[in-house]
């Protein structure tokens, strides 16, 4: 594993993503759902909304880093949480 140059923060990052994926897989198996149409006018399931959340969060973090700077980066995560809530509620 040495060649992969692991660091603690990146390990935590991937563990969180893996945990999210596993959680949503279990959710999808235990509580099957009907796709719904939200503000984007496309059918989405929980998994789709998770994907939209994660991808959007990446762009939010990059935008914050580019426009505001790295010192206040945790606030970008706060924005992401609001964004995630919005996606799961309305998309």
């Amino acid at each position, binding site marked *: 594993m040495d060649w992969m140059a692991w660091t603690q923060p990146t390990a935590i990052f*991937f563990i969180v993503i893996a945990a999210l994926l596993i959680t949503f*897989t279990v959710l999808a198996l235990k509580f*099957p759902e*009907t796709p719904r149409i939200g503000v984007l006018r496309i059918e989405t399931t929980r998994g789709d909304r998770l994907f*939209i959340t994660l*991808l959007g969060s990446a762009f939010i973090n*990059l935008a914050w880093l*580019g426009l505001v*700077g790295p010192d206040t980066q945790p606030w970008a995560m706060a924005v992401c949480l609001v964004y995630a809530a919005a996606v799961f509620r309305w998309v």
Partner: protein
Amino acid sequence: MNKTVNQKAWFLVLPVLILVAFSAVIPLMTVVNYSVQDSFGNNQFFWAGLEWFEQMLHDDRMWNALQRQLMFSGIILAIEVPLGVYVALNMPKSGFWASFCLVVMSLPLLIPWNVVGTIWQVFGRVDIGLLGYTLDKLGIDYNYTQDSFDAWVTIIAMDVWHWTSLVALLAYAGLKSIPDAYYQAAKIDQASRWAVFRYIELPKMMGVLMIAILLRFMDSFMIYTEPFVVTGGGPGNATTLLSIDLVKMALGQFDLGPAAAFSIMYFLVILAISWVFYTVMTNLDKKGG
């Protein structure tokens, strides 16, 4: 849409997932790890945090490459899609010439990227290339190695030459699927040629055209080999598209950290576009059938 989705079938893709893990996921994770560290080789890494991302976001180099990339994709789409549709409309619908056209049109699609690059590299040369030599003799000042405009014209002409047939073939397939009854009805109504195109052919081609546009966009957005072989990103940085710049940074300069940050952002843009691609296609499918 009252049926619940049974997600259990996803377990069937497990073998593929394992393969993809080795070919894509693990390398991608490594790139993420590189992006937050600095290395001088010898497998020694030093923590750099978000520094590379910040540096790349404020770096004109990446934005310029992105700008050139968007311009390239925009121009080739604006040429290839209308041209492809025009070619498809004028292709014979049956008989020997239909098959002949199909074979001739698919020829450029079969040629490997680096060979296409080499063909055009030689073709455009002023001293020995047919195109370059002819233009020179006609008194047109053309030199793709020194003039950025000429370089752009060359790589765009090359892409149009290589890929218009894909759009044409897809559009042709769309046209062939229109039943004759539609044309007969249009004839009874004395519809003009334009009206037939606008209200029958175009709507019926929409699905395949969407696939063509999105395929060409994705492909041109990731293009590397052809412009690299022809211009090498030059003159200067005039044709340095995203992937050319990325390879220069990662392999040429061995700036693994910044290159990793760059490639993650590049990947995110491609992922976002692919998602739009997938969503639009599946929605069209649902509307259509």
